[in-house]
């Protein structure tokens, strides 16, 4: 469902130099699969996700979502992709119902289908009790669920989430990840980035570790743990540290 091949994204730095934010990244996410994109700050995770969401144009390489290329068919990608940015991305003065309804309109849903979809999402996401309250007065967890609902309103087969549990407490994070697990079971292809490895350790099917704009490790939890030096704790976090410490810290530029 999501296919990234040799993706490169360079930025122009303020001093005139070039920053290689993403430097030849390749991975894929199949339907009904949840993949965790791991990496330190500046590793290139958000840039990769923004390219997938058609917010950035790749310098080279390809990124395909549901058969649509981000360069040649960005509108097709947007119709097939739900994107949740690192910020919750919910307008403070609109209610959850209005947010979902407005994005339903943007995606061209017919009025009856749109109303039904909004009501369905309000129920699924547990937002019924606060459906008509301005988003500025919602808790972080509720806002994140509104953001997820906005990404799901058009029923996309692929979902990309940039640090979705960042502003949530443990309960909120657990609820959200359980929701994502249900979506995965429903056949969605899910790609999410996070720093909180313990939260996704048992929930993601596979992991892709990015460092310095390159993929430095990829596989299931067991693959990554097995590749880590013996003697340490058999956790995803320990495996992650082992991988990036062998590569050295800091993004290339």
């Amino acid at each position, binding site marked *: 469902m999501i296919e990234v091949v040799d993706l490169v994204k360079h930025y122009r730095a303020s001093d005139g130099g070039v920053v290689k934010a993403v430097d030849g990244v390749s991975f894929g996410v199949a339907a009904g699969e949840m993949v965790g994109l791991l990496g330190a700050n500046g590793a290139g995770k958000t840039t990769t996700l923004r390219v997938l969401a058609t917010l950035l144009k790749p310098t080279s390489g390809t990124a395909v979502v549901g058969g649509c290329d981000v360069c040649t068919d960005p509108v097709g990608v947007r119709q097939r992709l739900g994107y949740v*940015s690192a910020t919750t991305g*919910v307008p403070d003065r609109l209610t959850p119902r209005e947010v979902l309804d407005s994005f339903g309109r943007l995606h061209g849903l*017919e009025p009856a289908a749109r109303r039904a979809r909004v009501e369905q999402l309000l129920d699924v996401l547990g937002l019924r009790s606060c459906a008509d309250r301005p988003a500025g007065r919602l808790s972080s967890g509720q806002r994140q669920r509104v953001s997820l609902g906005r990404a799901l309103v058009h029923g996309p087969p692929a979902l990309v989430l940039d640090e979705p549990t960042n502003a949530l407490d443990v309960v909120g994070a657990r609820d959200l990840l359980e929701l994502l697990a249900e979506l995965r079971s429903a056949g969605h292809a899910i790609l999410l980035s996070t720093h909180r490895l313990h939260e996704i350790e048992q929930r993601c099917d596979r992991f892709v570790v990015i460092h310095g704009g390159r993929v430095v490790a990829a596989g299931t939890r067991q693959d990554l743990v097995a590749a880590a030096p013996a003697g340490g704790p058999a956790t995803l976090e320990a495996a992650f540290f082992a991988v990036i410490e062998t590569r050295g810290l800091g993004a290339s530029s």
Partner: protein
Amino acid sequence: MTGAGRNRPGGLHAALAIARRDLVEFVRDRRTLVVTLILPVAMYPMLALSTALGLRTAATEIQVERAPARIAVVLSGDGADALARRITAADATARRRPRSVWPAQIRLETVTAAEAKRRLDAAEADVWVDVPADCDRLLDGAGTVELPVSWAAKPPPPARVQEQFTAVMTEVADEARRRRLSAAGVPAAFLEPVRLTFPGETAAAAAPKQIVPIVAGGVLVLLAVLTLTGAFYPAIDAIAGEKERGTIETLLIAPCAARDIVFGKFLAVFAITLVTLVVNVASIGATAAVAGRYLPAGLSLELPRGVVWPAAVGVAAFTGLAALASATCLAVTTAAKSGKEAQNTLTPVILLVSALAGTALLPGMRAASPVAAVPFAGQVLVARTAFDEASGGVAGPLAATIVSSLLLTWLLLGVTALMLTDEDILFRGPDAATKGLARPSRRERPTVVEGVVPLVAGLAALWYAQGLTPDDLTLAIPLQQVLTVLGPLALVVWWQRVNLVRTFSVRWPGGMPLGAGGSGRHVASLTACLGGAGLVGAGLFGIGAAALLAVKGTALSAEAEDLNRRLLHLMLERPGWLAWCLMAVVPAVCEEFLFRGWVLAAFAGAGASLRRLAVAVVAQAACFALFHLLPERMPQTFALGIALGAMTVATHSILPAIVCHLVHNSIPLGLVALAGGRAALAAAAEAGGSTTDLTGIPPWGVAAAVMGMVCGVALFAVGIRIAHTAGSSKGDDA
């Protein structure tokens, strides 16, 4: 869900969805509500109330000042009774005529002098007249009666009482004059050879004065400014606010083009701006209806030909203004990353645009089609003209302003769409907004914009220096050079951190560094180049002066005449070395560093092609000519600028240009010497002869100038040739 119950996304459908979503957000923003609804509703009544109160106070004061007074007059002396009779008779006669200055009532009393003085001191009377006994006889005879008049001291009577009493006594004198003429057998008409009559005077005076054309300009400018402020908060909220809240990314991944998003946001901002306009117009109308009842007599708020046509023109023009204001505010705030940053960017733009709208109030501005197309000023001008002139005259300008508004709006929306998806703008750091003002990193040469900055600053300084510059050029030239050339140049050079040697071409002709020693060929090259440059400068001065005299003769502008007078004063009154330094050395050095150093380097750029160099030489010469301000001198300074620029480019050195400029400016001093020296010219000036009355340069002079020019160019070319063969240009980078 995919594919089921779905319209084709994007296009107008998406734009309307975004407009609807944004409108809901705007309406829930209290700042928008205050600017859109409360400000207009409160503003106009407050303005009208304060204006009406001011007018009423002023009218009352005028009315009181002109109102007929009650005057208490005490008369004393033996002739008091007789004068009292005459005053009573004159009062009765005058009251039968319309008089603008006449007391409401005159109370006359005849008392003793002591009683009169007491009453005056006690303020029981306004005026005391001590009448001599022969008053009656003198008035009927041919003499003049002296009447001492005393005014009450504490408090003194108002000026109108004094004025009206004087009018009464003038009437008494007129009556006496008529009696004298009658006694002498002269008809009364003798004193009145002309009498003016105004048959339509009564009707014309009754027509109230229309004040709408007078106040329309100010009100329309205020309306334009308030309409602009209507777009202020929605525009900030529309894109910069979305970025601040982190919602812009979610919008940009909607299945539509950036132009659809921008158009949707424009529709929402435009809707709020239109509502602001409508509320403003309604408030103006309601305020006018109320204010009309309280206007002083003789003033009217009604339009002579009704309100429909001017209002229709105004609405059409201001709808264009609202669209343009919305698009402008959106475009200006798109690059901002937060609401605060957008506010900081938009505020000065709003002030500038308001000033532009205010230009419609300038005297003599009328809505001709080209002027009507000027954004923000044109719309106000068209509406103002519609309220002021016959209805047929604004159709063309109205069309021009609407077309201009739509075109500019479309262009601005296009730019906004480009900026919205620009990755650098969308995901830049927080300090990028001030990047343009940040001190740049070190580099070889300035950019074109940076090259123009000291010129603009210099011209601005020149404007202000006019008020400071003394008439004496001994002080004026250094002050002007420091304020307009060296000051701006030094500041820009310090700020820009460019390579000074390369930018200013500070080296020997051919590119050799100044500190490097030279061979015989180098010395020959330098001598030929500088000698040639000097000859070119002298020749150019001679040819330029001859051309100027041939074309204009002595019919120079007052400014040019004044400059000539001051230059002659400098040459005749000051020591020769000082005059030479001020007229030649200082301008040659300062202006060459600015124009052939900084400006030429900026226009030429690094690694310039021949075509770019040619354009750079012409452009800097145009700037050089413009900088000299006097139109008469511009052709000559332009030609000089071309020559100086070409020399700098050919030799990669500023030295030949300095020498050429120096010689060019030194020629007048040389001519003074040729004319017999300073003493001879001073003597001629003292004898009354004008030293500026040149009517032409003799043919031999022109021939010598041309010859000097040709020889200079040839010598200069030889110098360059020698430099090249000497290999002095090796490794040159300019």
